[in-house]
């Protein structure tokens, strides 16, 4: 009833091609942004901010990165964890080499390093496709893993072999390190994620994004209409790895506070891949949904069971959570194989014609 576009006329091509052509969508987005930037930091407890919101945004960013590669360009990658690690280690090296450099600049620059590494490992993508490419990126994952463990220079020869995040401030407020409040960390991450999502949205709706999708849909046809496969695929790898790298740097610096190389293992790659598949291949909002389901649901279940006042041993809760999440993933994939973002889209479509579906 409220969600109806009757009376909204488009008078220019720009209005017709807008990303959010319906006014209610634009209002909704504004409300979400205001809520995220103002409401959540004011209302949410430290626990919700530090354990739910911060990781959720970081995972969503990583999922966007993988989505650009797998969802939009159709190149299956299992190297996400490795690329995130490159970002994290690059950020560590940068911030220890230039302690006075703004930490946000460090984080955003570390993505460039990840992007270069990603482009190098994207080289085989011109020759090999599908599952074979997945195996090639798997080798990237293992190689990078090996580097993180074996090259002590990457962690400045720390005895612990781990990244130890130093204290960095922004306008006099601690952003990293133990003194950084969850509110500050959340806002910094939210700003970076919002900005990068906006960039990704523009990129994907433009020429570059269309060439990505053309390659995904049929690479021979794309080549015939003049898209250079090699450059497009490498660009997809570079952009995707940039996002993953920034997500990795955020993860270690603004969430964990210290990280062993094991954090960037193959498990991480699979986790992000599942988020993308559950969320929706080729959808930005799907990346957020996927992260919410895969990462947020177990926490919600764990705390939900506790809040009900049931005396269940911690290990049993863990088993229950694993079973429920597994079951829900299967359920969602049966209801809508194209992921949560597709469900969202269908829901909106239904609302537009409600109450007179035909």
């Amino acid at each position, binding site marked *: 009833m409220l969600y109806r576009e009757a009376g909204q006329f488009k008078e220019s091509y720009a209005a017709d091609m807008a990303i959010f052509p319906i006014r209610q969508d634009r209002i909704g987005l504004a409300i979400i942004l205001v809520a995220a930037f103002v409401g959540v930091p004011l209302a*949410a*407890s*430290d*626990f*919700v901010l*530090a*354990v*739910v919101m911060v*990781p959720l945004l970081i995972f969503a960013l990583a999922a966007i990165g993988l989505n650009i590669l797998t969802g939009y360009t159709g190149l299956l990658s299992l190297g996400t964890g490795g690329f995130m690690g490159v970002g994290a280690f690059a950020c560590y090296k940068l911030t*220890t080499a230039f*302690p006075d450099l703004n930490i946000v600049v460090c984080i955003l620059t570390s993505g460039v390093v990840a992007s270069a590494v990603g482009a190098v490992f994207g080289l085989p993508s011109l020759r090999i496709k599908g599952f074979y490419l997945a195996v090639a990126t798997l080798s990237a994952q293992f190689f990078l*893993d090996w580097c993180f*463990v074996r090259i002590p220079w990457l962690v*400045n020869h*720390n*005895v*612990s*072999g*781990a990244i*130890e995040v*130093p*204290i960095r401030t922004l306008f006099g407020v601690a952003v990293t*390190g*133990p*003194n950084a409040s969850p509110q500050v960390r959340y806002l910094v991450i939210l700003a970076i994620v919002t900005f990068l999502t906006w960039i990704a949205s523009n990129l994907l709706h433009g020429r570059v994004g269309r060439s990505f999708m053309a390659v995904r849909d049929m690479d021979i046809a794309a080549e015939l209409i003049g898209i250079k496969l090699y450059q497009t695929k490498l660009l997809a790898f570079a952009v995707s790895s940039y996002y993953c790298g920034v997500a990795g740097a955020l993860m270690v610096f603004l969430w*964990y*506070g*210290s*990280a*062993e*190389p*094991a*954090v960037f*293992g193959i498990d991480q790659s699979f986790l992000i891949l599942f988020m993308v598949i559950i969320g929706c291949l080729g959808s930005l909002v799907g990346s957020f949904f996927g992260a*919410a389901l895969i990462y*947020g*649901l177990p*926490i*919600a*279940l764990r*705390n*939900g069971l506790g*809040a009900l006042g049931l005396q269940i*041993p*911690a*290990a049993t*809760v*863990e*088993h229950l959570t*694993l079973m429920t999440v597994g079951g*829900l993933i299967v359920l969602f994939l049966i*209801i*809508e194989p194209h992921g*949560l973002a597709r*469900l*969202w889209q*269908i*829901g909106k479509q*239904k609302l537009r014609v409600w109450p007179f*579906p035909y």
Partner: protein
Amino acid sequence: MKKTSIVAVALCAAIAATTAMPVVPASAQEQIYVPLFTYRTGPFSGSGIPIAEGMHDYLEMLNQRDGGIGGVKLAIEECETGYDTKKGIECYESVKNKKPVVVNPWSTGITLPLIARASVDKVPVLSMAYGLSASAVGDVFPWVFNPPATYWDGLSMILSYIGGKEGGLEKLKGKTLGYIYLDAGFGKEPIPLFQQFAKDYGFNLKLYPVAATEMQNQSAQWLNVRRDRPDYMVLYGWGALNPTAIKEAARVNFPMDKFVSIWWPGEDDARSAGAAAKGFKMLNWHAVGADFPFIQDIKKHVTDKNLTQTDKTHIGALLYNRGVYNSMLIAEAIRTAQGLTGKKAVSGEDVRRGLESLDVSPARLKEIGMAGFTDPLKLTCSDHNGHLPAFMQEWDGAKWVKISDPIKPMMDKVGPLLADAAKEYVEKNTGWPKRTEACDKSS
């Protein structure tokens, strides 16, 4: 299709509702909140379950037998980490607001982020014989404790045992020692010390790293062992790495009595290799078995009343007793803190002081039914470790048998290394706070 969208909306609402729910502090006024980070699930649960059982049962026994510590009940709550850093941090954040008096991360990966947070959140970290070795230096790490010995102490004890068998450390000259380890912070930490020993005593050191993902596939490393024929092998492993290493050693016919491990393998690890594991050795600092008054009390007050999920066959097992030892330290620290402050319901700050003044004397050990179970331990402001001697024990095919007297760590080698590591940590972490916590007189 309509149904599906309703389902989706309902689920989203449910998720939002449950995540937004604030965490209600469970501890009432007159309780001491002791969270236990455990892992009864995941790839390391084989080791994690007996430890969790031991930790829980000892504290529960104090609750049942004495009504807690100093008349205040302990609110014991387990948080499942699955040995995963992500979940460990989630656990920490979820218990932080309930005023925990101490946290035991039970994973080096979880300990490292908590080291920096401990002083800010005023929650002491007890990483018992794991974590960052340098945190033994209390002047730099006032909030972190890692008694009773560091991994560097452990290595020096293993080497002095091997030296003793050969008739002096000098006799190691020209021999080859192999080191098989988990290729992570934990396993890599002893390498600099090992290399220094190799240089000082003129033996060859061969390294056999095992990646965390390859713990159950060590055939390549052991092929190399067979080729290099080291005179001794030293093992630093955890989880599935230990049983696999013992099995592989048996397969390549490595003489088991020359295979020495740090303190983490349990009975199941040795048992898995069958009769061939006979002669396998490891360091330990507490007794194995159930013939102690405190275990009888645990049986009487906890396990026989079914107040726990403990598998009764685990009672008295090596890692079960390790868990009990960990809880004993917590309990004694709380008791010491109560004595120092005169308060009943102590806070994290008080327990930090309690840990620094911890003095588990022989008389006290007898009092708590642990005479002969372990050695006395005394911590001070500057020494958060104790550097306790450990003894060597051997697997006789069915159980662990103590085969040596306590071996002292070589503090002349380990001490400077610890000081250097602590200094380096401070240098690399610019802005690391200087110790401001006052030192209690008794310590």
